[in-house]
Protein backbone atom coordinates (compact mmCIF):
# COMPACT_ATOMS: atom_id res chain seq x y z
CA UNK A 1 0.00 0.00 0.00
CA UNK A 2 2.85 2.38 0.88
CA UNK A 3 6.01 1.91 -1.04
CA UNK A 4 9.15 3.95 -0.37
CA UNK A 5 11.93 3.63 -2.95
CA UNK A 6 15.43 5.06 -2.56
CA UNK A 7 14.39 8.27 -0.81
CA UNK A 8 17.02 10.92 -0.13
CA UNK A 9 16.39 14.31 1.40
CA UNK A 10 18.52 17.34 2.23
CA UNK A 11 18.00 20.44 4.36
CA UNK A 12 20.27 22.75 2.40
CA UNK A 13 23.53 20.83 2.27
CA UNK A 14 22.69 18.65 5.27
CA UNK A 15 21.48 15.20 4.30
CA UNK A 16 18.70 13.96 6.58
CA UNK A 17 17.65 10.86 4.63
CA UNK A 18 19.95 8.63 2.63
CA UNK A 19 18.60 6.14 0.13
CA UNK A 20 15.77 4.75 2.26
CA UNK A 21 13.51 2.00 0.93
CA UNK A 22 10.74 -0.02 2.50
CA UNK A 23 7.19 -1.14 1.99
CA UNK A 24 4.02 -1.33 4.05
CA UNK A 25 1.45 -3.86 2.84
CA UNK A 26 -2.27 -3.63 3.35
CA UNK A 27 -3.21 -4.51 6.92
CA UNK A 28 0.37 -4.43 8.07
CA UNK A 29 1.60 -2.62 11.18
CA UNK A 30 5.14 -1.30 10.85
CA UNK A 31 6.98 0.33 13.74
CA UNK A 32 9.82 2.74 12.95
CA UNK A 33 12.29 3.43 15.73
CA UNK A 34 15.72 4.93 16.19
CA UNK A 35 17.54 7.63 18.15
CA UNK A 36 16.44 11.24 17.86
CA UNK A 37 17.66 12.90 14.69
CA UNK A 38 17.72 9.57 12.88
CA UNK A 39 15.22 10.79 10.29
CA UNK A 40 12.28 8.65 11.36
CA UNK A 41 9.88 11.57 11.78
CA UNK A 42 11.06 13.05 8.52
CA UNK A 43 10.44 9.88 6.53
CA UNK A 44 6.90 9.50 7.83
CA UNK A 45 6.14 13.13 6.90
CA UNK A 46 7.44 12.41 3.40
CA UNK A 47 4.79 9.72 2.97
CA UNK A 48 1.98 12.27 2.80
CA UNK A 49 4.19 14.99 1.34
CA UNK A 50 4.28 17.23 4.39
CA UNK A 51 8.02 17.23 3.81
CA UNK A 52 9.33 17.33 0.24
CA UNK A 53 12.11 14.96 -0.76
CA UNK A 54 14.65 15.43 -3.50
CA UNK A 55 15.36 11.91 -4.70
CA UNK A 56 13.49 8.64 -4.98
CA UNK A 57 9.84 7.77 -5.18
CA UNK A 58 7.02 7.18 -2.72
CA UNK A 59 3.71 5.72 -3.86
CA UNK A 60 0.58 5.38 -1.80
CA UNK A 61 -2.04 3.00 -3.20
CA UNK A 62 -0.31 3.28 -6.57
CA UNK A 63 -0.23 7.10 -6.64
CA UNK A 64 3.13 8.84 -6.73
CA UNK A 65 3.53 11.34 -3.88
CA UNK A 66 6.40 13.29 -5.44
CA UNK A 67 4.71 13.75 -8.81
CA UNK A 68 3.84 17.47 -9.18
CA UNK A 69 0.65 16.46 -11.04
CA UNK A 70 -0.67 14.52 -8.05
CA UNK A 71 -3.65 16.09 -6.29
CA UNK A 72 -2.04 16.21 -2.86
CA UNK A 73 -5.09 17.27 -0.82
CA UNK A 74 -6.99 14.34 -2.31
CA UNK A 75 -4.16 11.92 -1.61
CA UNK A 76 -3.75 13.17 1.95
CA UNK A 77 -7.46 12.87 2.60
CA UNK A 78 -7.03 9.13 2.20
CA UNK A 79 -4.29 8.87 4.83
CA UNK A 80 -4.80 9.63 8.51
CA UNK A 81 -2.00 11.21 10.48
CA UNK A 82 -1.40 11.63 14.20
CA UNK A 83 1.25 14.07 15.43
CA UNK A 84 3.58 14.17 18.39
CA UNK A 85 2.04 17.40 19.69
CA UNK A 86 -1.56 16.42 18.86
CA UNK A 87 -2.08 19.53 16.70
CA UNK A 88 -5.76 19.74 17.46
CA UNK A 89 -7.17 23.05 16.27
CA UNK A 90 -7.41 25.08 19.49
CA UNK A 91 -10.08 27.47 18.20
CA UNK A 92 -12.49 24.65 17.28
CA UNK A 93 -14.45 22.42 19.64
CA UNK A 94 -13.67 18.71 19.83
CA UNK A 95 -16.59 17.86 17.55
CA UNK A 96 -15.69 20.62 15.09
CA UNK A 97 -12.15 19.24 14.94
CA UNK A 98 -13.66 15.99 13.74
CA UNK A 99 -16.20 17.42 11.29
CA UNK A 100 -14.05 20.05 9.54
CA UNK A 101 -12.35 17.79 7.00
CA UNK A 102 -15.42 15.60 6.54
CA UNK A 103 -17.48 18.61 5.45
CA UNK A 104 -14.84 20.65 3.61
CA UNK A 105 -12.83 17.85 2.02
CA UNK A 106 -15.14 14.88 1.68
CA UNK A 107 -18.25 16.99 1.12
CA UNK A 108 -20.37 15.22 3.72
CA UNK A 109 -23.41 16.98 5.11
CA UNK A 110 -22.96 18.57 8.56
CA UNK A 111 -25.41 16.04 10.02
CA UNK A 112 -23.62 13.02 8.58
CA UNK A 113 -20.28 14.44 9.68
CA UNK A 114 -21.56 14.98 13.18
CA UNK A 115 -22.94 11.45 13.43
CA UNK A 116 -19.62 10.03 12.33
CA UNK A 117 -17.74 12.31 14.73
CA UNK A 118 -19.84 11.25 17.70
CA UNK A 119 -19.41 7.58 16.81
CA UNK A 120 -15.65 8.00 16.74
CA UNK A 121 -15.61 9.96 19.99
CA UNK A 122 -17.60 7.20 21.59
CA UNK A 123 -15.11 4.71 20.31
CA UNK A 124 -12.15 6.51 21.90
CA UNK A 125 -14.18 6.99 25.08
CA UNK A 126 -14.52 10.78 24.92
CA UNK A 127 -18.20 11.27 24.20
CA UNK A 128 -18.56 13.32 27.40
CA UNK A 129 -16.07 15.89 26.09
CA UNK A 130 -17.60 16.48 22.67
CA UNK A 131 -18.33 20.18 23.21
CA UNK A 132 -15.11 21.07 25.01
CA UNK A 133 -12.16 22.86 23.46
CA UNK A 134 -8.81 21.06 23.09
CA UNK A 135 -7.19 23.27 25.71
CA UNK A 136 -9.60 21.89 28.31
CA UNK A 137 -8.47 18.28 27.82
CA UNK A 138 -5.50 16.36 29.19
CA UNK A 139 -2.70 15.35 26.84
CA UNK A 140 -3.92 11.77 26.62
CA UNK A 141 -7.45 12.88 25.87
CA UNK A 142 -6.20 15.30 23.22
CA UNK A 143 -4.22 12.58 21.51
CA UNK A 144 -7.24 10.28 21.49
CA UNK A 145 -9.27 13.07 19.90
CA UNK A 146 -6.49 13.48 17.36
CA UNK A 147 -6.69 9.77 16.50
CA UNK A 148 -10.46 10.08 16.13
CA UNK A 149 -9.95 13.11 13.91
CA UNK A 150 -7.55 11.18 11.69
CA UNK A 151 -10.09 8.36 11.46
CA UNK A 152 -12.91 10.77 10.58
CA UNK A 153 -11.85 10.87 6.94
CA UNK A 154 -12.00 7.05 6.64
CA UNK A 155 -8.32 6.64 5.82
CA UNK A 156 -6.92 3.59 4.05
CA UNK A 157 -3.78 3.86 6.20
CA UNK A 158 -2.67 5.68 9.36
CA UNK A 159 0.63 7.41 10.09
CA UNK A 160 1.67 7.99 13.71
CA UNK A 161 4.55 10.37 14.41
CA UNK A 162 5.72 9.68 17.98
CA UNK A 163 2.16 9.76 19.28
CA UNK A 164 3.09 9.20 22.92
CA UNK A 165 6.37 11.05 23.37
CA UNK A 166 4.75 14.34 24.43
CA UNK A 167 2.59 12.59 27.02
CA UNK A 168 3.01 12.15 30.75
CA UNK A 169 3.77 8.48 31.53
CA UNK A 170 0.39 7.81 33.13
CA UNK A 171 -1.40 8.85 29.93
CA UNK A 172 0.59 6.78 27.49
CA UNK A 173 -1.44 3.62 27.94
CA UNK A 174 -4.83 5.14 27.18
CA UNK A 175 -3.45 6.21 23.80
CA UNK A 176 -1.65 2.95 23.14
CA UNK A 177 -4.85 1.00 23.91
CA UNK A 178 -6.66 2.85 21.16
CA UNK A 179 -3.80 2.18 18.76
CA UNK A 180 -3.66 -1.53 19.65
CA UNK A 181 -7.37 -1.84 19.06
CA UNK A 182 -6.95 -0.15 15.70
CA UNK A 183 -4.14 -2.53 14.76
CA UNK A 184 -6.17 -5.56 15.75
CA UNK A 185 -8.98 -4.39 13.49
CA UNK A 186 -6.60 -4.66 10.57
CA UNK A 187 -5.75 -1.00 9.92
CA UNK A 188 -2.62 -0.40 7.88
CA UNK A 189 -0.31 1.53 10.18
CA UNK A 190 3.12 3.11 10.07
CA UNK A 191 4.13 4.12 13.59
CA UNK A 192 7.18 6.08 14.68
CA UNK A 193 7.56 5.28 18.36
CA UNK A 194 9.89 4.22 21.13
CA UNK A 195 7.18 2.10 22.75
CA UNK A 196 8.70 -1.33 22.31
CA UNK A 197 5.85 -2.90 24.25
CA UNK A 198 3.49 -1.71 21.53
CA UNK A 199 5.81 -3.08 18.87
CA UNK A 200 5.98 -6.47 20.59
CA UNK A 201 2.22 -6.67 20.89
CA UNK A 202 0.96 -5.69 17.46
CA UNK A 203 3.77 -4.88 15.02
CA UNK A 204 4.39 -7.13 12.05
CA UNK A 205 7.67 -5.50 11.16
CA UNK A 206 10.16 -3.18 12.83
CA UNK A 207 12.37 -0.69 11.03
CA UNK A 208 15.41 0.69 12.80
CA UNK A 209 16.90 3.96 11.57
CA UNK A 210 20.06 5.83 12.43
CA UNK A 211 21.66 8.93 10.89
CA UNK A 212 19.14 9.08 8.06
CA UNK A 213 19.58 5.46 6.97
CA UNK A 214 17.45 2.38 7.42
CA UNK A 215 19.75 0.03 9.34
CA UNK A 216 17.33 -2.81 9.90
CA UNK A 217 14.02 -3.75 8.35
CA UNK A 218 12.83 -7.11 9.62
CA UNK A 219 9.98 -9.02 11.20
CA UNK A 220 9.16 -8.36 14.80
CA UNK A 221 10.48 -11.73 15.89
CA UNK A 222 13.80 -11.21 14.16
CA UNK A 223 14.14 -7.74 15.63
CA UNK A 224 13.51 -8.78 19.17
CA UNK A 225 15.39 -12.03 18.67
CA UNK A 226 19.12 -12.28 18.55
CA UNK A 227 19.96 -11.41 14.97
CA UNK A 228 20.28 -7.68 14.97
CA UNK A 229 22.92 -5.08 14.39
CA UNK A 230 25.14 -3.71 17.10
CA UNK A 231 23.67 -0.24 16.80
CA UNK A 232 20.12 -1.49 17.17
CA UNK A 233 21.20 -3.56 20.15
CA UNK A 234 22.77 -0.53 21.78
CA UNK A 235 19.67 1.55 21.09
CA UNK A 236 17.32 -1.12 22.42
CA UNK A 237 19.31 -1.61 25.61
CA UNK A 238 19.23 2.13 26.16
CA UNK A 239 15.49 2.59 25.82
CA UNK A 240 14.56 -0.61 27.58
CA UNK A 241 16.44 0.49 30.65
CA UNK A 242 14.65 3.79 30.93
Amino acid sequence: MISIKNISKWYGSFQVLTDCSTEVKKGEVVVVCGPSGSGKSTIIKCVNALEPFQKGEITVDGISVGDPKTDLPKLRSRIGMVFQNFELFPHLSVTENLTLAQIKVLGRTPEAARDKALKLLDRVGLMAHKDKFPGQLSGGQQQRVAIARALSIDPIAMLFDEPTSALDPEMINEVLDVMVQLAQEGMTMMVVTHEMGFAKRVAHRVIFMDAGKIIEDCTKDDFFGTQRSERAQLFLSKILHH
Partner: protein
Amino acid sequence: MSGYDFDVIQRSWVYLFRDGMTFTLTLTALAMVGGIFFGTLLAMMRLSRFSILSYAAGGYVNLMRSLPLVLVIFWFFFLVPYIGAWAIGAKDPVKVGSFMSCLITFTMFEAAYYCEIMRAGIQSVARGQVWAGYALGLNYWLTMGKIVLPQAFRNMLPVLLTQTVILFQDTSLVYVISATDFLGAAAKVANRDYRLVEMYTFVAVVYFIISFGLSLLVKQLQSRIAIIR
Protein backbone atom coordinates in the same frame (compact mmCIF):
# COMPACT_ATOMS: atom_id res chain seq x y z
CA MET B 1 -7.77 88.58 20.74
CA SER B 2 -9.01 89.29 24.24
CA GLY B 3 -9.90 86.52 26.65
CA TYR B 4 -11.03 83.05 25.69
CA ASP B 5 -14.41 82.24 24.25
CA PHE B 6 -15.28 78.61 24.77
CA ASP B 7 -18.84 79.31 23.59
CA VAL B 8 -17.51 78.72 20.10
CA ILE B 9 -17.56 74.99 20.90
CA GLN B 10 -21.17 75.11 21.99
CA ARG B 11 -22.09 76.98 18.83
CA SER B 12 -20.37 74.53 16.53
CA TRP B 13 -20.43 71.13 18.18
CA VAL B 14 -23.28 69.78 16.06
CA TYR B 15 -21.29 70.55 12.93
CA LEU B 16 -18.07 69.25 14.46
CA PHE B 17 -19.51 65.90 15.43
CA ARG B 18 -22.26 65.31 12.85
CA ASP B 19 -20.04 66.20 9.91
CA GLY B 20 -16.48 65.99 11.15
CA MET B 21 -16.45 63.12 13.60
CA THR B 22 -18.72 61.02 11.41
CA PHE B 23 -16.22 61.39 8.58
CA THR B 24 -13.35 60.46 10.89
CA LEU B 25 -15.03 57.42 12.43
CA THR B 26 -16.44 56.09 9.15
CA LEU B 27 -13.06 56.48 7.51
CA THR B 28 -11.36 54.72 10.42
CA ALA B 29 -13.80 51.81 10.44
CA LEU B 30 -13.82 51.21 6.69
CA ALA B 31 -10.06 51.65 6.32
CA MET B 32 -9.55 49.20 9.16
CA VAL B 33 -11.67 46.55 7.47
CA GLY B 34 -10.10 47.17 4.07
CA GLY B 35 -6.62 47.46 5.52
CA ILE B 36 -6.85 44.20 7.43
CA PHE B 37 -8.29 42.44 4.37
CA PHE B 38 -5.54 43.59 2.01
CA GLY B 39 -2.94 43.36 4.76
CA THR B 40 -3.81 39.70 5.29
CA LEU B 41 -3.55 39.03 1.56
CA LEU B 42 -0.19 40.80 1.48
CA ALA B 43 1.00 38.75 4.46
CA MET B 44 -0.01 35.53 2.71
CA MET B 45 1.87 36.69 -0.38
CA ARG B 46 4.94 37.59 1.67
CA LEU B 47 4.99 34.11 3.19
CA SER B 48 4.24 32.41 -0.11
CA ARG B 49 6.74 29.96 -1.55
CA PHE B 50 6.34 31.69 -4.93
CA SER B 51 9.16 34.17 -4.80
CA ILE B 52 7.54 36.59 -7.28
CA LEU B 53 4.57 37.03 -4.97
CA SER B 54 6.68 37.43 -1.86
CA TYR B 55 9.00 39.96 -3.51
CA ALA B 56 6.10 41.96 -4.89
CA ALA B 57 4.35 42.11 -1.53
CA GLY B 58 7.59 42.81 0.32
CA GLY B 59 8.44 45.63 -2.07
CA TYR B 60 5.02 47.21 -1.67
CA VAL B 61 5.09 46.97 2.12
CA ASN B 62 8.59 48.40 2.40
CA LEU B 63 7.77 51.22 0.02
CA MET B 64 4.70 52.24 2.00
CA ARG B 65 6.54 52.01 5.29
CA SER B 66 9.40 54.16 4.02
CA LEU B 67 7.24 57.10 2.96
CA PRO B 68 5.58 59.77 5.10
CA LEU B 69 1.81 59.34 5.23
CA VAL B 70 1.37 62.95 4.13
CA LEU B 71 3.23 62.22 0.91
CA VAL B 72 1.20 59.06 0.34
CA ILE B 73 -2.02 61.06 0.85
CA PHE B 74 -0.88 63.51 -1.84
CA TRP B 75 0.10 60.67 -4.16
CA PHE B 76 -3.26 58.96 -3.97
CA PHE B 77 -5.20 62.22 -4.03
CA PHE B 78 -3.80 62.92 -7.49
CA LEU B 79 -3.33 59.33 -8.63
CA VAL B 80 -6.76 57.89 -7.86
CA PRO B 81 -8.57 59.95 -10.57
CA TYR B 82 -6.13 58.54 -13.13
CA ILE B 83 -6.49 54.99 -11.83
CA GLY B 84 -10.26 55.42 -11.97
CA ALA B 85 -10.05 56.59 -15.57
CA TRP B 86 -7.83 53.66 -16.47
CA ALA B 87 -10.18 51.23 -14.69
CA ILE B 88 -13.32 52.34 -16.52
CA GLY B 89 -11.50 53.15 -19.75
CA ALA B 90 -12.24 56.86 -19.68
CA LYS B 91 -9.98 59.33 -21.46
CA ASP B 92 -9.79 61.97 -18.76
CA PRO B 93 -9.16 61.58 -15.04
CA VAL B 94 -12.42 60.87 -13.23
CA LYS B 95 -13.67 62.99 -10.36
CA VAL B 96 -13.31 61.20 -7.04
CA GLY B 97 -14.84 62.56 -3.85
CA SER B 98 -12.47 63.41 -1.03
CA PHE B 99 -13.91 60.70 1.21
CA MET B 100 -13.35 58.03 -1.44
CA SER B 101 -9.85 59.27 -2.07
CA CYS B 102 -9.08 59.18 1.66
CA LEU B 103 -10.58 55.73 2.03
CA ILE B 104 -8.45 54.29 -0.77
CA THR B 105 -5.35 56.01 0.61
CA PHE B 106 -5.76 54.78 4.16
CA THR B 107 -6.76 51.28 3.10
CA MET B 108 -3.69 50.90 0.92
CA PHE B 109 -1.34 52.60 3.39
CA GLU B 110 -2.51 50.82 6.51
CA ALA B 111 -2.56 47.49 4.64
CA ALA B 112 1.24 47.63 4.74
CA TYR B 113 1.23 47.97 8.52
CA TYR B 114 -1.53 45.41 9.08
CA CYS B 115 0.44 43.09 6.78
CA GLU B 116 3.40 43.02 9.14
CA ILE B 117 1.09 42.29 12.07
CA MET B 118 -0.68 39.48 10.24
CA ARG B 119 2.63 38.07 9.07
CA ALA B 120 3.76 37.81 12.67
CA GLY B 121 0.35 36.34 13.51
CA ILE B 122 0.56 33.67 10.84
CA GLN B 123 4.09 32.81 11.92
CA SER B 124 2.91 32.57 15.53
CA VAL B 125 0.72 29.61 14.60
CA ALA B 126 2.68 26.41 15.13
CA ARG B 127 3.95 24.71 11.99
CA GLY B 128 2.26 21.48 13.08
CA GLN B 129 -1.15 23.13 12.74
CA VAL B 130 -0.50 23.59 9.03
CA TRP B 131 0.70 19.99 8.79
CA ALA B 132 -2.41 18.79 10.57
CA GLY B 133 -4.61 20.73 8.16
CA TYR B 134 -2.80 19.38 5.11
CA ALA B 135 -2.75 15.88 6.56
CA LEU B 136 -6.54 15.95 6.72
CA GLY B 137 -6.61 16.76 3.02
CA LEU B 138 -7.44 20.47 3.37
CA ASN B 139 -5.97 22.57 0.56
CA TYR B 140 -4.02 25.82 1.02
CA TRP B 141 -7.05 28.13 1.16
CA LEU B 142 -9.00 25.92 3.57
CA THR B 143 -5.97 25.44 5.80
CA MET B 144 -5.39 29.20 5.84
CA GLY B 145 -9.03 30.19 6.19
CA LYS B 146 -10.19 27.61 8.71
CA ILE B 147 -7.08 26.92 10.76
CA VAL B 148 -4.24 29.41 10.47
CA LEU B 149 -5.99 32.77 10.05
CA PRO B 150 -8.56 32.34 12.85
CA GLN B 151 -5.72 31.62 15.27
CA ALA B 152 -3.53 34.38 13.84
CA PHE B 153 -6.37 36.90 14.27
CA ARG B 154 -6.97 35.80 17.81
CA ASN B 155 -3.29 36.00 18.73
CA MET B 156 -2.89 39.39 17.11
CA LEU B 157 -6.21 40.99 18.05
CA PRO B 158 -4.75 43.44 20.59
CA VAL B 159 -2.01 44.49 18.18
CA LEU B 160 -4.49 44.89 15.32
CA LEU B 161 -6.68 47.09 17.51
CA THR B 162 -3.72 49.13 18.71
CA GLN B 163 -2.83 49.74 15.08
CA THR B 164 -6.43 50.84 14.54
CA VAL B 165 -6.10 53.45 17.30
CA ILE B 166 -3.05 54.73 15.42
CA LEU B 167 -5.10 54.72 12.22
CA PHE B 168 -7.82 56.72 13.99
CA GLN B 169 -5.24 59.36 14.86
CA ASP B 170 -3.63 59.22 11.43
CA THR B 171 -6.90 60.07 9.69
CA SER B 172 -6.52 63.63 11.01
CA LEU B 173 -3.84 64.08 8.33
CA VAL B 174 -6.54 64.32 5.66
CA TYR B 175 -6.42 67.98 6.69
CA VAL B 176 -3.69 68.36 4.05
CA ILE B 177 -6.17 67.75 1.24
CA SER B 178 -8.79 69.95 2.96
CA ALA B 179 -11.16 67.10 3.73
CA THR B 180 -13.71 67.85 6.44
CA ASP B 181 -12.85 65.31 9.10
CA PHE B 182 -13.10 66.22 12.78
CA LEU B 183 -9.91 68.27 12.67
CA GLY B 184 -10.83 69.77 9.30
CA ALA B 185 -14.25 70.85 10.58
CA ALA B 186 -12.69 72.34 13.71
CA ALA B 187 -10.08 74.17 11.64
CA LYS B 188 -12.81 75.70 9.48
CA VAL B 189 -14.70 76.95 12.53
CA ALA B 190 -11.48 78.11 14.17
CA ASN B 191 -10.48 80.20 11.17
CA ARG B 192 -13.99 81.56 10.57
CA ASP B 193 -14.47 82.78 14.15
CA TYR B 194 -10.77 83.30 14.77
CA ARG B 195 -10.89 81.05 17.83
CA LEU B 196 -7.82 78.89 17.24
CA VAL B 197 -6.72 78.43 20.83
CA GLU B 198 -10.12 77.22 22.02
CA MET B 199 -10.81 75.05 19.02
CA TYR B 200 -7.46 73.26 18.83
CA THR B 201 -7.41 72.70 22.58
CA PHE B 202 -10.88 71.20 22.35
CA VAL B 203 -9.84 69.00 19.41
CA ALA B 204 -6.83 67.74 21.34
CA VAL B 205 -8.99 66.87 24.34
CA VAL B 206 -11.54 65.00 22.23
CA TYR B 207 -8.87 62.99 20.40
CA PHE B 208 -7.20 62.22 23.69
CA ILE B 209 -10.39 60.95 25.32
CA ILE B 210 -11.26 58.69 22.39
CA SER B 211 -7.74 57.31 21.83
CA PHE B 212 -7.03 56.82 25.49
CA GLY B 213 -10.43 55.19 26.01
CA LEU B 214 -9.84 52.83 23.10
CA SER B 215 -6.38 51.87 24.28
CA LEU B 216 -7.74 51.12 27.75
CA LEU B 217 -10.30 48.82 26.12
CA VAL B 218 -7.54 47.10 24.17
CA LYS B 219 -5.54 46.60 27.35
CA GLN B 220 -8.55 45.07 29.06
CA LEU B 221 -9.14 42.76 26.13
CA GLN B 222 -5.49 41.78 26.17
CA SER B 223 -5.61 40.70 29.78
CA ARG B 224 -8.83 38.78 29.16
CA ILE B 225 -7.32 36.91 26.22
CA ALA B 226 -4.25 36.21 28.32
CA ILE B 227 -6.46 34.49 30.89
CA ILE B 228 -8.27 32.33 28.33
CA ARG B 229 -4.99 31.07 27.03
